[in-house]
């Protein structure tokens, strides 16, 4: 694997590879969504798959998000393994009923008799001047819904490995990709592998404070850590990877060592998942904390269009480092 891992591909290419792996492996697997077939996905996530697997398995749909998710729910409950593409996470507004009231709850409402091996792939995040309706990070809506799992790959490696893990899981799993990461390159093995759902990873070791993050903000946290390193501060950076279930143990272990934590996400700070993470940290490591758990997230406004505003809006390495400095009393 060492050698294969040398190969670098893009995040978007990794999605396609993960999807291909699953389609080869599971005969009940199919992909459905708007423009996933003929166009290969508007981001290119499924390029080439139509030719390879045919239109029975790579299915263009009408612009009918509720219908698409419902199709996934019905197909999964009756034995298939759908991969449903919801182009932009923002469009969940059109299908939250099928997500929240059907997909997430069917198994429970039926007393365990239904199984819903459904994977939903969607794109989150701002930074591309797509404005308020194409830039959101709404993962907290999903994380609050018992019955769903939610993962947020930050790297090409994870994009492939988590998509595979999600599609092999017998539960509904949302794989929330990040659109600004699409062209990022990274090492991705050619073979099939899983990045386990529910396991966080320490992506940078440090003793002075802990950044807890996920999705694209992991790389900003790493950048912030590097900036702080110049000042002699070593931040540990944790990529949660999986938001539901969440690997709290890895976070607590780190905080017990560093005694300080900054939770970082791109989503709006207020009522974002950062609240849950911060609350858990202080619940479980109260006596270890030398300072309150800090949070970095987007301010309380919709995502603006103009670059100058959007960049002001977006969390980034500078803001993370500034928050860390403040926490350290620097």
């Amino acid at each position, binding site marked *: 694997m060492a050698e294969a891992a040398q190969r670098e591909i893009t995040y978007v290419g990794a999605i396609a590879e993960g999807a291909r792996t699953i389609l080869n492996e599971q005969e009940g697997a199919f992909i459905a969504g708007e423009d996933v077939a003929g166009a290969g996905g508007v981001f290119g996530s499924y390029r080439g798959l139509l030719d390879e697997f045919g239109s029975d398995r790579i299915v263009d749909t009408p612009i009918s998000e509720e219908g698409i998710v419902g199709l996934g729910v019905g197909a999964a409950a009756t034995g298939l393994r759908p991969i449903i593409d919801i182009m932009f996470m923002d469009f969940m507004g059109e299908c939250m009923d099928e997500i929240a009231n059907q997909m997430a709850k069917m198994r429970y*409402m039926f007393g365990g008799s239904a199984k819903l091996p459904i994977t939903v792939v969607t794109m989150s995040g701002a930074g591309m001047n797509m404005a308020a309706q194409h830039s959101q990070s709404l993962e907290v809506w999903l994380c609050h819904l018992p019955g769903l799992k939610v993962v947020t790959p930050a790297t090409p490696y994870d994009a492939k490995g988590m998509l595979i893990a999600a599609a092999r899981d017998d539960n509904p799993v949302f794989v929330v990709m990040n659109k600004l990461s699409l062209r990022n390159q990274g090492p991705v093995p050619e073979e099939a592998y899983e990045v386990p759902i529910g396991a966080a990873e320490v992506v940078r070791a440090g003793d002075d404070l802990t950044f807890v993050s996920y999705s694209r903000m992991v790389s900003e946290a790493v950048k912030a850590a590097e900036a702080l390193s110049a000042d002699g501060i070593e931040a540990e950076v944790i990529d949660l990877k999986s938001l539901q279930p969440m690997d709290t143990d890895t976070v607590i272990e780190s905080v017990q060592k560093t005694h300080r934590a900054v939770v970082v996400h791109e989503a709006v700070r207020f009522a974002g998942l950062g609240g849950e993470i911060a609350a858990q940290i202080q619940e479980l490591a109260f006596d270890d904390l030398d300072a309150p758990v800090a949070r970095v997230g987007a301010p309380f406004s919709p995502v603006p269009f103009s670059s100058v505003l959007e960049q002001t809006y977006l969390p980034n390495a500078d803001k993370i480092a500034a928050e860390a400095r403040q926490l350290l009393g620097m």
Partner: protein
Amino acid sequence: MDQPTDEVLLDIHRRMVRIRVFETEAGRMAEAGKIPGALHLYVGEEAVAAGVMAHLSDDDWITSTHRGHGHLIAKGGEFDRMFAELFGRATGYCRGKGGSMHISNMDLGMLGANGIVGAGPPIAVGAAFSTKFRNTDRVAVSFFGDGASNEGSFHEAANMAALYKLPAIFVCENNGYGEYTPQANHQAIVDVADRASGYGMPGVIVDGMDAVAVYEAAGAAIERARSGDGPTLLECKTYRFFDHVGVRGMGLSYRTDEELEEWQKRDPIHMFEARLDELGVLSRDDAAKIHEGVLEEVRAGIEFAESSPLPDPETLLEDVYA
């Protein structure tokens, strides 16, 4: 489509009676405070579920509505486990977690009652996609109300089913009301079937109080679906004899007693029994015996439910994930 055989007629009759007696007794139990929550009864609409389900096997799928007991019974649901579910017992089909609005049985191909109006059709499309994907000749039938026909989810599902030529049948149970709102106050059309052409599928209107008419129209639609010709929208004009929730039939403020009485004259079971008697298929006496036999079964079901254990609180967190 041939005329139904005597066997089929008796089968349809039995399904209708099973629904009627179950629902009537369930209503009593609710009034006695033994069934908690919201209970949407199917009395008056039996011909629809029975006429459609007579064509289906356990391998065909259906999605249902908040008014779902009738569909499950017609699909083969057993009284004991159904009552147990309504009573919130551990032995219920959903282990007491679903109740009336989510009663379901996957083994019978019944993808659940649904508390969300309009949520069923997209799921049925998924089930139909599934049977087509696997090249079986199974179908998926989605039941939904006149009120539900105004939900966008119905529209999206109908369009997708027609587009993919899926073996789906959309059965609109038009009972003239969505809760307390008459059809004229929720849509400007009279026939929901008029929506079919907008999706590119046939729309068929049938007397939903006439089980044979439903049987024949459903048969044609199901046949069409099984042979790969795509979906049909089948509108059954019917009426609920009870209130939107619970039992009270007369004296409701949103509809007149006269209206109810008019419809009751066309009680689907009475009409059907008169016909069976006339045809010499089933005498009045034998029909009465069937009602009695079913009533006994229903009572046994209630007894089963009442003597069943409540769920263990420990099971609360089970069944959230596979």
